[in-house]
């Protein structure tokens, strides 16, 4: 028994020394300037990555080593996966008159830019998302925001965009451009986002 106790650390060293995995997890700096966070967990052992190029290596399940990666290592290890990333979505905003689905006149000029963005993407999709200000009930604003999105869709279809590529939704007043109290009219929140992706 005594011999076995003495042997245990030796056995453990042999087990740990023999790596079974070659895993690498890297948090990248966000393109928008913000770096998020990633929690890497292996059988209860955790590392939280929350700075640019913070990384975790797993050589054995149940042990997570915090390390720092670099732009050069990332290019070498992940080049093809990074090269395969889809283009980032680009959004355009059209604005509306109070409690209507009528465009504000200056929004009409945007349409050409939207077409150009669609033309330079493979398999483009157009996602139209309506928003309202906080005048009116939630149900009312959900319906109004959807109506605004549908009005936009109808205009884009008239201009020749295939219907199958377009999806519409209404976010109501959940995602204001300018946060306000309830029942405050705010023209900058009465908008439709046209995301091309």
């Amino acid at each position, binding site marked *: 028994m005594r011999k076995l106790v003495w042997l245990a650390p030796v056995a453990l060293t042999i087990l740990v020394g023999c790596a079974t*995995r070659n895993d690498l997890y890297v948090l990248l700096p966000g393109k928008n300037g913000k770096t*998020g966070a990633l929690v*890497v967990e292996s059988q209860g052992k955790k590392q939280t990555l929350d700075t640019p190029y913070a990384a975790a290596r797993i050589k054995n399940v149940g042990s997570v080593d915090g390390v720092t990666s670099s732009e050069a290592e990332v290019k070498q290890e992940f*080049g*093809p*996966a990074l090269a*395969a990333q889809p283009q980032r*979505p680009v959004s355009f905003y059209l604005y509306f008159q109070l409690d209507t689905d009528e465009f504000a006149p200056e929004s009409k000029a945007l349409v050409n830019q939207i077409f150009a963005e669609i033309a330079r993407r493979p398999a483009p999709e157009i996602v139209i998302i309506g928003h309202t200000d906080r005048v009116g009930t939630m149900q009312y604003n959900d319906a109004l925001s959807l109506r605004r999105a549908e009005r936009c869709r109808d205009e884009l279809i008239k201009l020749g965009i295939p219907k199958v590529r377009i999806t519409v939704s209404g976010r109501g007043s*959940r995602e204001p451009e300018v946060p306000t109290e309830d029942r405050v009219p705010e023209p900058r929140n009465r908008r439709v986002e046209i995301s091309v992706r």
Partner: protein
Amino acid sequence: MRSALMALPLLLAFVAGASATEDAGQIKTSKGSAQIDRSGQKLSAAVGQVVQQGDTVVTGADGSVGITFRDSSLVSIGPDSVLVIDRFVFDPTTHQGNFDASLKQGTLAVVSGKLAKQSPDAMKVKTPAAILGVRGTEFLVRTAPAKD
């Protein structure tokens, strides 16, 4: 009448949730050998092909694939990779839902989307060695057995 109207969003949510074959995303980039395995059926992972919950995306030694999901998550895999879309549910009005994926082998690049932004627990990525909680934005994963 009023209560019927109030029940409508619930009913719609139910109908949306029940349609398991709803598109989760669309392939935007594809190179070399790349396939989708959908319930045993092999499909070419060509640009424009839709990806659904339950699909497995597989690349060969010269392959890579990039997918834009409905919540605008951008997910791409490099060569010799196997990615399973375990679950994808997204409500475009509330941004509630779940995105679970498993990288069985290979390399993965992710720019998280609206699901992870709405709720820090909405997106999970699994590998044979770990589970990742995605608190937003951009990260990379390589999972492989140790080299001899």
